[in-house]
């Protein structure tokens, strides 16, 4: 049995070696993408383009604007002097927000009334808009606070902050979103490489008819599958290690937890992905179908359903259940746990078990379909 498996594996390696261009794509592209995406993807919001419509033109309004711009969250890109222009600057994307100080802004503050600042936010990108609004809320709270404090001092009370908040951030003190997104990026690149390469390699044999030769030979389908997946597992594992190394060099993403555990989990994840590829190959008759299926099953779901970018707990319950279809969901948790948190297997053993269940489920379904195909 072993010799037959090795024979198949050897044949596969020979074929892979012959296809230099393919190897090049498999090794170089993930790197280039990692570099590009690692820098490109982040949700950190800085330098929000701001336009000011100041009807008050008082010291208070100027003070507020100074306070906003001194953090580098807001950049004032212009001032306007009519209500009509508000529409224009937001429509034309000149500003993401417009701050309007009403005429009585300063007067209200000094005559003990509540002063309002109008903030108009372009909310097409709702995520950025809610970050912006939380900055604004914090800024007005600080501003009010200063007024209350000063007034209190005038009246003879001692100025102080009653409740002081001291936040501490574990695992990622700078709240850098890149660090959080890198595990997702790694899993996406890995699953796509693994699923697509194995599915295509099997379907190609089907298309060329060489699968019939294998079918009449004494090789069992399990032997065939193991033989086929072995070279790709090794290949994907090498790609995984180089990606991890690159993450460390480029983004300083260190591995806080156990490297051994990381490799074991990565191997299990790859095993699940390869089995998914095998399943796809068993239901596709042409490489075109295999690819479309792989693309539809791996790219968008692992991007959108895995918790890579969008928090799973914000999804409707039915979709939350559905997120379990992608192995990426579980692998991302493991990666984040090991890389960012540095916690041990006690935190993520359920995920490992899920991945194993996935593997055997995919493999079983695939071999049932394969056997049926053989009989037909």
């Amino acid at each position, binding site marked *: 049995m072993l010799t037959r498996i090795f024979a198949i594996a050897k044949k596969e390696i020979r074929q892979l070696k012959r*296809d230099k*261009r393919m190897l090049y*794509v498999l090794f170089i*592209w993930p790197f280039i993408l990692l570099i*590009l995406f690692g820098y*490109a*993807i*982040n949700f*950190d919001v800085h*330098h929000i383009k701001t336009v000011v419509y100041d009807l008050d033109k008082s010291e208070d309004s100027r003070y507020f604007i100074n306070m906003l711009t001194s953090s580098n969250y807001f950049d004032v890109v212009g001032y306007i002097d009519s209500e009509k222009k508000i529409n224009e600057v937001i429509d034309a994307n000149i500003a993401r927000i417009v701050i309007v100080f009403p005429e009585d802004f300063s007067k*209200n503050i000094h005559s*003990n009334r*509540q002063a*309002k600042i*109008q903030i108009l936010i372009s909310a*097409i990108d*709702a995520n950025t808009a809610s*970050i912006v*609004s*939380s900055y604004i*809320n*914090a800024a*007005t*709270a600080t501003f009010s606070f200063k*007024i*209350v404090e000063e007034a*209190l001092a005038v009246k003879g009370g001692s100025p102080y902050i*009653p*409740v*002081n908040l*001291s*936040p*501490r*951030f*574990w*695992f990622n003190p700078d*709240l850098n979103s890149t*660090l959080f997104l890198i595990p997702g990026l790694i899993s*996406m*690149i890995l699953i796509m490489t693994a699923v697509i390469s194995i599915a*295509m390699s099997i379907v*190609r044999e089907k298309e060329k008819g060489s699968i019939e030769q294998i079918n009449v030979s004494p090789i069992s389908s399990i032997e065939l599958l193991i033989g086929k997946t072995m070279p790709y597992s090794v290949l994907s594992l090498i790609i995984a290690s180089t990606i991890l190394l690159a993450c460390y060099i480029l983004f300083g993403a260190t591995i806080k937890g156990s490297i051994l555990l990381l490799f074991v989990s990565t191997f299990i994840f790859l095993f699940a992905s390869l089995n998914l590829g095998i399943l796809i190959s068993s239901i*596709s008759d042409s490489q*075109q*179908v295999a*690819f*479309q*299926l792989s*693309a*539809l099953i791996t*790219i*968008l779901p692992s991007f*959108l*359903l895995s918790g890579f970018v969008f*928090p799973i707990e*914000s999804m409707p319950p039915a979709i939350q259940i*559905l*997120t379990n279809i992608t192995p990426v969901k579980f692998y991302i*948790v493991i990666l984040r746990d090991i890389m960012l948190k540095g916690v041990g297997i006690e*935190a993520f053993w359920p995920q490992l078990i899920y991945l194993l269940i996935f593997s055997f489920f995919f493999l079983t379904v695939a071999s049932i379909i394969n056997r049926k195909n053989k009989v037909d």
Partner: protein
Amino acid sequence: MKTILNIIIKEFLQLKRDPKLFSIIFVAPAIQLILLGYAANLDIFNISTAVYDMDKSVTSRSFIEKFESSGYFSIKYYVDSYNRITELIDNGDVLWTLVIPNDFEKKLKRGEQVSVQALFDGSDGNKTSITLGYVTSIVSSYSSNILLQKSTMLNAKQPFGTVSPELRFWYNPNLKTRFFMLPGIVGLILTIITTTLMAMGIVKEREIGTLEQIIVSPIKPYQLIIGKTLPFVLLGFMDVLIVTAVMVYWFGISIKGDFFFLMIASLIYVLSSIGLGLFISTISKTQQQAMMVATFGVLLPMNFLSGFAFPIENMPGWIQPITYLIPLRYYITIIRGVILKGDGFTQLIPEISVLLAAGIVILIFSSLRFRKRLS
């Protein structure tokens, strides 16, 4: 003309023979859009929270109440040790823990400053910053209330003025991420279908040798190119219709702008994505290569660099120019503009022109390469 028509008919017949491919082209995009439309949501609420209340006083309970009633937090655990906090945060059970010291009530009554701790799982920087914003505003409004009460006691006159923001959100008043994401997903699905189908369709023929047969036949290269690309343009366009229908009728996102204009823009976009597919087919020998190039060279960059999920203006300066090379970037700006803002031709002239120019350039360049490879 007749030759072109014949090629087109042959192409459709072939598609009909592959029912699996056929259903992928027409059913998958609709299903995907529905599922992903629900999933693509960055709205943050029900933030899982733990509270470590060492004070257990009336004041601390009313302080905690402020968090509960804000609607952002769901307090899942009340804990009584730091070890338990570590455990909860390590396992990802809560995003943050509020720690109230045992002298909370006492210090506030004496008019001293009291520190409350907020311990966050910072691994998701985005979620944590938004949460921090919520926490900060609740705490500072609690603080200024205390000061206000104090000042009323000091001086029986009215309290002094405070400033409050009046936030108004345009285009998407409920801050639903879905409105922003759906048009993007439409563009992405369209690209996956058209670019890869085109590329693989041609490479497949080359692999099985039917392309050679055509070369020795009297068909002219330009007829072949038109005959091969038109069916995919049609398919892509039909996908646009399907996916737009799902967006409008399933999700109830109405198109504020001109539908006709949106369709023209989509057609222009399909030109460039078909062109990319043709280009991939000219640099790939096997279908495997074609799809590797399509995935890594086209689909993934589009996913990440088109502004579909990650705002381009947040990217570092050297990456932003690269995004100009991605046709999907312009298409996404156009569909978001038309659907959400009601933009028309005048507002979108730059995007439409770039897209049209890019489409023509890509298509001509790829056709030339394709012709060269044929001869």
